[in-house]
Every structure is written in structure tokens, then in C-alpha cells.
């Protein structure tokens, strides 16, 4: 499998007044295309910071971040926006839907910034995605009329609308009960099986078990990097 994400000596420091906080202390990681990765670690381990860097929302202090073949580490703000818009999809813990928009409009949102023409075709695509995540009956509902699980499904549909190379999840089940979490994880695994690369942050072991690979961070360094037993992953699907 070709590498879709390769980070080399990734360092991220935060400057708080005169103090420098070393969050990521020289990470080297490679994620392959079609993989399903769970980033774990205690709070303060740097997993969220890593996800922000991977999501092009933040720039590393030093080191390289190759997304595909391109080093995006030192790109300008506008270029990073472009990368997010074209190659990345986001799923957040708190769903982050816009309350004034309907389900379909929320799904459509990333297309707004792609500079493409919004017409019946793109609309049909958004409707299809919403139907795919099981919201065919609720196309014109607003987020506040939906349950948490339904909102997260809207977010998943939204993350797919630009056909991204990489989907990033920031504790996608963090606000959901166990049953709904399983539903969401099943959906993510389906996506992964259809070829999408997914990287998600979680601190729950049973959620991490859905992933193929688990990377544990501690104090800004990789603590362990394990592959889940394929057999076990298959069993969970059953």
C-alpha cells in the first residue's frame, strides 16, 4: 500500500509567554492508503495536536508532513485551506453542524468553498449522501431537530461530499451512547472497507478496537504502534 501520510521529525511547540511547551517531540509516522488508524493517549499526549496538524488546521514548528507526495508543512494559510477543501474530510466530537442550515445544506457546505458550480447535480449528490447515512426522511430538518447519532451521520455525509483522500475524526463517538457509537463505527468501517483512509482520535479502548492500527502517544512521542488482529476485527463486524 502506498503511503498517504508520512510525517518526518514532526515537532510542535507552543509558546506561552516566555515558556515553550513541547507538544510533539519529533514524530515519525507513516499511514498507508486505505488504513483505519486510531490515535490514542492520555490527555496532554499530543494526539489532538497531531490531528490538527494532520488536518492542516495547524502548522508544525519543524519537520515535514507529506500528504501524498506533497509537503504541506510550510504551506500558506490559503494553500492549507485549499488542501482541506480538496483532500480532507472532518468528523468532530461535537458534530459541528451549522444550526441555521438543513441537513442537505450542511452536507453541501464544503462544496461552497471549492469554487465549483452548485447546481442540481451537486444537490443530488448531497441528497444521495444523506440517504446513504440513513437520513432520507430528514433531508430538510435542522440539526437541532436531530438526535446526536443522526447529527454525527450528517457530519459523516458532509465529510464525504468532497470525496476526500483522508477522513479525520476527532473523537467521533465522544458524545454518543454505546449503541449509537457502534452504529457510527460500523458506518466508518464500511467507509474504510470501500477504500477511505480514516484517522481518528479516541481515548476509548473499545472504539480503538474498530481500527486496524492503533498508535499510542505519550508526552509527544510514539509509545506503541500496534496492528489489531485482523481476525478480531472481523469478529467485531459480525
Amino acid at each position: 500500500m502506498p503511503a498517504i501520510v508520512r510525517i518526518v521529525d514532526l515537532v510542535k511547540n507552543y509558546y506561552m509567554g516566555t515558556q515553550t511547551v513541547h507538544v510533539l517531540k519529533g514524530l515519525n509516522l507513516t499511514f498507508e492508503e486505505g488504513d483505519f488508524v486510531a490515535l490514542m493517549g492520555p490527555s496532554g499526549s499530543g494526539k489532538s495536536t497531531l490531528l490538527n496538524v494532520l488536518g492542516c488546521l495547524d502548522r508544525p514548528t519543524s519537520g515535514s508532513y507529506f500528504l501524498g507526495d506533497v509537503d504541506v508543512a510550510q504551506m500558506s494559510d490559503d494553500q492549507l485551506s485549499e488542501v482541506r477543501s480538496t483532500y480532507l474530510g472532518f468528523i468532530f466530537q461535537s458534530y459541528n453542524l451549522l444550526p441555521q442550515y438543513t441537513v442537505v445544506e450542511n452536507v453541501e457546505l464544503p462544496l461552497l468553498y471549492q469554487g465549483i458550480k452548485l447546481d442540481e447535480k451537486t444537490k443530488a449528490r448531497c441528497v444521495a449522501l444523506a440517504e446513504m447515512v440513513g437520513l432520507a426522511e430528514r433531508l430538510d430538518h435542522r440539526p437541532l431537530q436531530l438526535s446526536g447519532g443522526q447529527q454525527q451521520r450528517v457530519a459523516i455525509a458532509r465529510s464525504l461530499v468532497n470525496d476526500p483522500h483522508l477522513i479525520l475524526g476527532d473523537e467521533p463517538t465522544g458524545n454518543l451512547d454505546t449503541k449509537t457509537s457502534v452504529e457510527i463505527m460500523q458506518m466508518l468501517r464500511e467507509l474504510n472497507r470501500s477504500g477511505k483512509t480514516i484517522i481518528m482520535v479516541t481515548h476509548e479502548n473499545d472504539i480503538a478496537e474498530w481500527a486496524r492500527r492503533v498508535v499510542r502517544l505519550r508526552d509527544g512521542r510514539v509509545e506503541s504502534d500496534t496492528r489489531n488482529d485482523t481476525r478480531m476485527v472481523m469478529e467485531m463486524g459480525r
Partner: protein
Amino acid sequence: MNAYLQLSPTNPALIGLVVLLVCGLGAWLVVTGRILTGGGAAKVRRSVSLAVKSLWLHKLRSFLSVLGIIIGTSAVISLMAFGEGSMQDALADIKRQGATNIIVRSVKPPDDSATANRSFVTSYGLNAKDLSRFSTFGDAISRMVPIRVQPTEARYLERMSNARVIATVPGYAEVNQLEMSRGRFLVEADDHEIKNVCVLGSEIADKLFPTEDPMDNSVILRSMRFTVVGVVKERMPTGGSGGSQAAEEYNRDIYIPFRTSLARFGEIIFTRSSGSRSAEKVNISQVTLTVDAEVDSPTGRLKVQAVGDEIKRMLDKDHYKRDTAVTVPLDRLEEAERAQNRFTNLLVLIASISLVVGGIGIMNIMLATVTERTREIGIRRALGAKRRDITMQFLVEAVVQTTVGGLCGVLLGLGMVFTVPVVWKLIAGSALPAKVHVPSIFLSLFVSIGVGVLFGWYPAQRAARLDPIEALRHD
């Protein structure tokens, strides 16, 4: 020239407006340029509908924040209209007195009584030579009306009344807008044939002929008989203004042909008043020259001024005693226009302040909105929005607000222009002239759009500069 803003570099209203205009225009160009390079008309429509949508979420707040713009725009438009209305009213008054006229009068030199010349007869003023000199202007002067004023007793049978005998030419009726109630005014033939005819003012006609018909009867002036050929309609006396134009009371005047006066009464005018008597040798009391020019065109005005200056120069050269005075009513007209312009500019300046205040209101609300919608900004940024997209979003919201506000203000202002005079008339009983000043509509609309860009810029920039991660974490 009826331009509203006076084009002088020291005019504060003008400077303010120009600065606002230039800023607004510049920012507007930048914005439209960005919109157009960023995807054309569809994108404009999309961002406008987006803006309308989020403004609609907070209808009352949007309305309140735009209220300042509405008031400012309507104030500009209505103040301009009332200013323009009253100005045109006042100017029409002056124009009625003949704005292209130049009035040359004979005045008694101030030091004359002290001179060693121990004559009873003081001699001064315009004479026939001056008249012929005036005619060297040729076509520039379309009409020349000399008058010669002599206070005289007028008699008919046993009735007698003090009158002012004015010897003049037919053009006088036109210059002074006299209207006849009976008969005719003097004609050319009266002058040429030195006829003893006269035209009576309404009051003098009533006094001398309370019961009889004055027409074709004879009035005795200085023991000479003058046949009445007409009676002038009663006319409101004109007010004198600042000593430059004497008040004239037309109703006690008797008009006789100019040459008749010279031939019958001679050059010396005797006046007798309450025991004292004086004799003055005055050929011509006053000459009204009408310059052939259009009062509403700048070249016409220049021409009037030029002729006036030339006449002054001509008279200065010849009349060393300074016994003439030249009045150019146009000066008064321009003075009035200037005063009116100053006044209107001041009003507009005050109204513009409310536009600026409205802009600050918008900025205030926008800043609050940006804080409130921080998370939305974060979401949009995460989903691929560039800083520019966020700037645009908020800028368009501000501009949509001020544009809609400006339009409402224009409508409100026009409504005021059309309703206030009616109400005013009902309440105060007097007319309140108003005339819509069309450029002010576009100007205020344009300025309110500019205010939106100007005051929306900073909040929009602030929104765009938010760190996406921070913004996403914001509650």
C-alpha cells in the same frame, strides 16, 4: 450654475463626502474585484443569499443596527430637498426682479453741500452722454430703460395729489413687470412725438378720479395737461435691500414719455418739501440696462458681470464726483445662492454624521456577531473556507445591511419630501417648498454602501483572522 455642492476646496461637507465616496468606492472596487475573480455572478448571488439568510435569523437586531443608516439616508435626502426647495423659492424671487439687469443710478455726491459752488442748483448724475455711451455695448445690452423721477403735484379739476412723475420709455413696463388694468402703457410713438400722455398708478388714479373714468381725461402736471392713456394694476411695492436697490412704491407713480419730460420740464428738477426747496439738475435718475444673457448659465453670468464692470469703469472715468452708483442684482443672487449652499452643506454634513454613526452601529453589531459566530467561522474554515471567503461573508452581510438600509432611507426620505409639505400646510398654513435633488439620492445610496464596506471591513477582517482551532473550540 445650480450645482448643489459648491466646488471649493475648503468646503467641509464636500471634503467629507469626497473622502467617504473615495473610500467607499475604493473598497467597493476591491470587493467586487474579489467577487468577480472568485467565481462570478453565481457566487455573488450565493453569498448575498447567504448573508440575507443569516441576517434573517436576527430580524430585529438587523433592523436596529441598520436604523442609523436609514435615518441618515432619509435625512440627507429630505434636507437636500427642503434646502433646494427653499433656495429655488428665494432665487425665483430675485430673478423676478431681473437678474440680468444692471441698474445705474444718479446719486447726490455726499460732499456737494460743502463745496464753494454757491449755486442753488446742484448738478449731478447721469446725462445723455452716458446714455449714448451705454449704447456702444451694442448687442450685449438688449434693453436700456432710462427713468427720470420728479416729485410733482398732480391735479385733476379741484383734486390734487402728490405723485412721483416718472419719465421713461415703453420698456419700463417690462422691466418692472407692470400690468395694465385699463388702456395701454407708453409706446414708442409717444416718445418720438413728445406727446403729452401719461399712465397712472392705481392709487393716484383712485385719488384723482374717485368717481370718473380717468381714461382720456387730462391730468395737470406742472401746469401742463397730460392725457391719461392707461392705468396700471395695483402692485406690491418691492422691498429695498441693503441700500443697493431702493424700495419702490409703484402705486403713486405717474408715467410720462421720457422725451416729453425733457422737452416740457427742462433739465432742472425743483423739489419742494415742507417749506424748504431745492433745485437739482438731473438729466436721468436711473438707467436699467438689461444684459442679453441667460441667468442660469455660467457664461451668461460672466457676461453680466463683465458688462457691469465695464460700465463701472466707464462711469468712474467720466464722473469724477462719484455721482453714480451701479447695482448688479446678480451679485445679490449669487450671494443668496452662496448662503443657501453653505446652509445646505451644513445640513448635509450633519446628516452625514448620522450616516457615520449608523456605520459605527453596524460595526458594533458586526463585532458582536463575529464573536457570537466564532464557532461557525471555525467550522467553515475547517471545511475549506479561505480567510478571504470569511472576510467576504461578513463584508457582504454588512453591505447588504447598509444597502437595504440605504434603500429604505431613500424611500423614507422621499416619503417625507412628499408628505411633510402637505402636513406642514395643514398645520402651519404656509408652504414648505421642497424639490427632490436627484443626485442626492444616488449620493446617499452610494455613501451608505460605502459605509457598509468601510465599517464592515474591520469586523470581517477580525473574523477572518481567527485561528481555526481556537474558533472550533469556542462555545
